[in-house]
């Protein structure tokens, strides 16, 4: 389909568009054309489109208010499918060929929206109405009222599928960060850059220049935007300066850190393969010049939300930058001289200026002169008191100085209530701006450390002054960074006038019903009347006003509404604006895609994956893997013909109990500890005694936290005089390392000891089972003696295996069988697994995974993660006797508190269901048999369970009040989540080989 109407409002080529090329796009299914450099807004405007969207609450027809990121009305769904972007401001969406946009929050279509009738009930649906009703009957809220409210909630729709695009993050460092590339920002960057500072200039727009592009203005006799381009070229030629366009600095954080998002590929249909859509920049700057410009304020008058009522500055932007006339017949409504420029620009491009309504008295400005030049009717001391045209302005009612109302037909209203400096970045750290009566504006007062504000953002609205202000700020920023800087030569600018008289609304003397349709916050449909109602109900703190009316909480965060609301509230409560206060502006300054803040770490790469040394081999074996913290570990090794995981795991367990199995236990934390005071150090961090551990021996150790609860356990081997290697649980490996460093560096710096992690250095494989010695004998190099006498339980040695590979061997057992842990340098881990399979084949060797490891340890009654959960004590774990009473150690004192030693505490027990086939579920609770299931009768819980092939029954470990005294008792194991109760016997937690004969074998 060809363009329906063509770009009939394109008046000439704007300085930012390339009319030599045509782009095709569609809006609400209709095809249009535009040019490179257009935004969706400017292109639609060029095509004569006025109606862009619907408001949130009353679904009122809305058009463009602005030409920038402050836009409250013209929100669309951009793109489609998985790339659908809801609530995209048409004013910042760069046009590309094939762009698809759809209007939102309307049904069935934009020009007829059924929920538009909400407006008829606005007197009921005023601020906070929902707090006062929908309470009866109580059950109707979730069932009836809320679903209706939720149907109407929100604006655009999030995509239905995962975002297919990539995002990335980067960190940049500079001396001077300049935010904004208008006259002040460019001057600041030039001053700092020429001084040799490392400068980053961020501009949220695709082009540099800021309002230099938006105004019909000359610098040094040239068009102002050409000077901006020249400045950009000079900056880009400097080696340590970078100009980042399409990059919005959205937040000020601590330590001179700024958050910025770069739209890398939003101006194209689809990013190229590998190309990120956006990049999140963390910019660390010693100094920052904040030159983010200012935002124009609308005027609050009845029906000021009609499509065609626009900000005066935005009208100039569309004319000068985009070459688009936003209407054919305009009325200009202003309280300041800046607004009058709009009349001149409109006149220059041939738009009829029907009237100039200046709220200031005649003679107080140059308005009469301008009106005469443009041939416009002039209304000094005038006000617009109504506006007509449902889906587009048709006329306004102007009240003249004498109070007489006259209708003026028009299709465009350009209004200016003055400019609000864009101070957001100065307030993110909690500083509030202060009100300046002469400028009718909030200006930054206390700035974050290292930040200076310049130009319009600091209330300097004149171009020449802005250039100078920016240059000064850039110069001083460079000087503070230690550079010699001078003020750069600046271009000559024509003087401009910004004479202003306060104008926030035109409601004086109007009936209440009119005020109901005078909008303060456009997107959230907050009217002047809502502000009045909130005040009447006592919501007179600005924060209360904001929260009660939702004013300033829309996607534009009140950029165009906050000051007007404040002025209204001040007037109603008979206070000044400074007395009334202001709300803090929260980051981000513009909404930021969550994908950009997340970056590249998504899906399977959300967190890094740690692979043990035998991973490749285990994959080839067809192992099933499980996440264990960041580690990926083999959970079990299924064999053909096995019907489920339980069969596999049971077979693996039996292999260990009857022959020999092996398992990669590299993931256990391993810490090399050396130094003259190493033994003393161990003695202080473990609960048990460590001073007499002989070289070549291993000991089990339990650590507490300083609050007396159990923290971690493991074994530590003495490999030489003053040389130990400690193992920790997989989960706590990092934490224990930090804990040891803490103890050493802060608690006992006098101890001479060194730590380094060797977790990744050694591939450590547990070889367990009655045939384990036979298997090891095949690989251990002579003359190492593996006999029980030479290398008994809890022995450790350094040796070589497989003909010269250095190794460490520990006679340890988690399974309760005769077992070893063999460590070789990690690079050989994979090959060691293969070798064990080879040499172990005659003995029936098989690998086992973490699941079988768990079954084996439960059968043996060894506590692990579920038992060492940070809430249990040594006593709870049945290890109370381990606590030395002869020394100080971490936790020694607090472990003695009465509640930690109370014999009634649930203590470790074993559990066997009366019917061995009754499956136990970890997390079930223990109750006395026959007791009613309540919190009062709850006596403990089941922490770990397994089907034990060795016992031929389900078994479990758990904690039971007064547990050890109750061996033999039958209790109820309750799992009310599943509605299950099982009778089970309390037993000793060691199910297999309680005397420990096998591990000594």
């Amino acid at each position, binding site marked *: 389909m060809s363009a329906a109407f063509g770009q009939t409002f394109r008046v000439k080529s704007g300085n930012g568009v390339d009319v030599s090329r045509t782009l095709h796009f569609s809006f609400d299914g209709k095809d249009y054309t535009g040019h490179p450099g257009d935004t969706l807004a400017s292109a639609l405007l060029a095509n004569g489109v006025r109606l862009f969207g619907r408001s949130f609450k009353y679904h009122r027809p809305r058009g463009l208010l602005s030409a920038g990121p402050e836009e409250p009305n013209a929100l669309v769904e951009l793109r489609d499918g998985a790339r659908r972007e809801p609530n995209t401001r048409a004013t910042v969406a760069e046009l590309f060929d094939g762009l698809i946009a759809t209007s939102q929050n309307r049904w069935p279509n934009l020009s007829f929206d059924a929920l538009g009738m909400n407006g008829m009930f606005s007197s009921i649906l005023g601020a906070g109405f929902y707090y006062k009703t929908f309470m009866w009957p109580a059950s109707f809220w979730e069932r009836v009222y809320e679903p209706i409210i939720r149907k109407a909630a929100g604006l655009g729709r999030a995509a239905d599928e995962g975002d297919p695009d990539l995002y990335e993050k980067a*960190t940049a460092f500079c001396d001077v960060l300049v935010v904004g590339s208008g006259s002040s920002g460019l001057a600041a960057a030039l001053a700092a850059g020429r001084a040799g500072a490392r400068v980053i200039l961020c501009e949220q727009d695709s082009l540099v220049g800021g309002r230099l592009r938006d105004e019909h203005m000359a610098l040094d006799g040239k068009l102002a935007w050409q000077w901006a381009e020249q400045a950009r070229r000079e900056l880009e030629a400097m080696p340590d300066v970078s100009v980042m366009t399409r990059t919005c600095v959205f937040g000020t*954080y*601590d*330590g*001179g*850190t700024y958050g910025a998002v770069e739209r890398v590929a939003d101006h194209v249909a689809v990013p190229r393969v590998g190309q990120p859509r956006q990049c999140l920049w*963390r910019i*660390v700057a010693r100094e920052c010049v904040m030159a983010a410009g200012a935002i124009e304020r609308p005027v609050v008058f009845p029906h000021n939300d009609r499509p065609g009522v626009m900000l005066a500055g935005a009208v100039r932007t569309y004319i000068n930058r985009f070459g688009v006339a936003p209407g054919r017949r305009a009325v200009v409504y202003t309280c300041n001289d800046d607004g009058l420029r709009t009349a001149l620009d409109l006149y220059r491009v041939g738009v009829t200026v029907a009237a100039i309504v200046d709220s200031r008295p005649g003679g107080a400005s140059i308005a009469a002169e301008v009106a005469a030049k443009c041939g416009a009717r002039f209304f000094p001391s005038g006000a617009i008191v109504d506006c007509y045209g449902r889906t587009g302005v048709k006329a306004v009612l102007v009240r003249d100085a004498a109070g007489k109302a006259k209708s003026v037909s028009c299709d465009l209203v350009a209004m200016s209530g003055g400019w609000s400096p864009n101070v957001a970045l100065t307030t993110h*750290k909690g500083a509030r701006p202060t009100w300046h009566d002469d400028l009718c504006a909030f200006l930054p007062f206390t700035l974050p*450390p290292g930040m200076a504000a310049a130009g319009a953002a600091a209330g300097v609205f004149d171009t020449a002054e802005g250039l100078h202000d920016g240059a000064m700020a850039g110069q001083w920023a460079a000087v503070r960074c230690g550079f010699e800087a001078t003020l750069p030569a600046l271009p000559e600018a024509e003087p401009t006038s910004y004479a202003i008289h306060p104008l926030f609304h035109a409601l004086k003397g109007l009936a209440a019903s009119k005020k109901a349709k005078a909008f303060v916050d456009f997107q959230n449909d907050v009217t002047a009347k809502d502000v009045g109602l909130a005040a009447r109900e006592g919501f007179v703190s600005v924060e209360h006003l904001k929260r009660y009316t939702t004013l300033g909480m829309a996607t534009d965060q009140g950029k165009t509404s906050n000051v007007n609301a404040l002025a209204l509230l001040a007037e109603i409560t008979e206070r000044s604006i400074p007395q009334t206060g202001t709300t803090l502006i929260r980051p981000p300054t513009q909404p930021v895609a969550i994908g950009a803040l997340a970056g590249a770490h998504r899906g399977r790469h959300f967190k890094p994956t740690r692979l043990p040394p035998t991973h490749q081999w285990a994959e080839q074996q067809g192992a099933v893997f499980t996440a264990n913290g960041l580690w990926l570990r083999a959970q079990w090794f299924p064999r053909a013909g096995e019907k489920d995981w339980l069969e596999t795991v049971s077979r693996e367990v039996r292999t260990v109990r009857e022959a020999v199995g092996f398992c990669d236990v590299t993931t256990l934390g391993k810490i090399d500890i050396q130094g003259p005071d190493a033994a003393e150090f161990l003695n202080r961090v473990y609960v048990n005694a460590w001073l007499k551990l002989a070289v070549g021996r291993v000991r089990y150790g339990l650590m507490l936290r*300083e*609050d007396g609860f159990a923290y971690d356990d493991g074994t530590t081997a003495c490999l030489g005089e003053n040389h130990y290697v400690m193992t920790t649980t997989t989960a706590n490996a*990092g934490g224990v*390392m*930090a804990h040891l*460093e*803490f103890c*050493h*560096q*802060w*608690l*006992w*710096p*006098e101890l001479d000891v060194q730590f380094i992690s060797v977790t990744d250095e050694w591939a450590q494989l547990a070889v367990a089972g009655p045939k384990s010695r036979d298997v090891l004998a095949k690989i251990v190099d002579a003359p190492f003696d593996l006999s029980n006498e030479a290398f008994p339980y809890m022995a450790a040695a350094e040796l070589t295996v497989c003909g010269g590979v250095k190794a460490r061997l520990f006679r340890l057992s988690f399974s309760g069988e005769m077992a070893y842990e063999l460590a070789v340098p990690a690079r050989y881990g994979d090959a060691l697994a293969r070798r064990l399979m080879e040499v172990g084949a005659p003995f029936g060797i098989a690998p086992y995974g973490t699941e079988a490891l768990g079954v084996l340890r439960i059968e043996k009654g060894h506590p692990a993660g579920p038992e060492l959960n940070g809430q249990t004590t040594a006593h709870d774990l049945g290890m109370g006797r381990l606590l030395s009473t002869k020394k*100080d150690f971490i936790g*020694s*004192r*607090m472990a003695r*508190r009465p509640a930690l030693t109370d014999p009634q505490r649930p203590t470790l027990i074993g559990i066997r269901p009366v019917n061995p086939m009754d499956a136990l579920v970890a997390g079930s609770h223990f109750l006395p048999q026959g007791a009613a299931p309540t919190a009062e009768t709850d006596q403990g819980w089941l922490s770990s369970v397994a089907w034990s092939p060795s016992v031929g029954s389900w078994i479990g470990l758990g904690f039971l009040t007064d547990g050890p005294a109750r061996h033999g008792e039958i209790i109820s194991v309750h799992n009310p989540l599943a509605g299950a109760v099982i009778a089970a016997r309390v037993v000793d937690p060691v199910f297999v080989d309680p005397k420990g004969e096998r591990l000594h074998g």
Partner: protein
Amino acid sequence: MRLTCPFCGSRGLEEFTYRGDATVRRPSADASQEAWVDYVYLRDNPCGPHRELWYHGAGCRSWLVVTRDTRTHQILDVRNARDVMLAERMSPEGKGEGS
């Protein structure tokens, strides 16, 4: 927020972990129960400058004593914790503290 590690220079928050108040001292084993409860649980928690322990775990693994304003997050001082404690042990007032 950024901390200037005495060894590694200025680094971002993500490299550090926090441990809390650096003004409390581990009592001796024979100190009173009150002293221990105080050490493990009670904190001044000031609104303003706060001496606190940070661990440069993703960097040089040094524990640091940082003085930071809890109202503004401004960093006022960073020292190597081990040096701070050794100096304290050497000073006349510091003797007898610790275990």
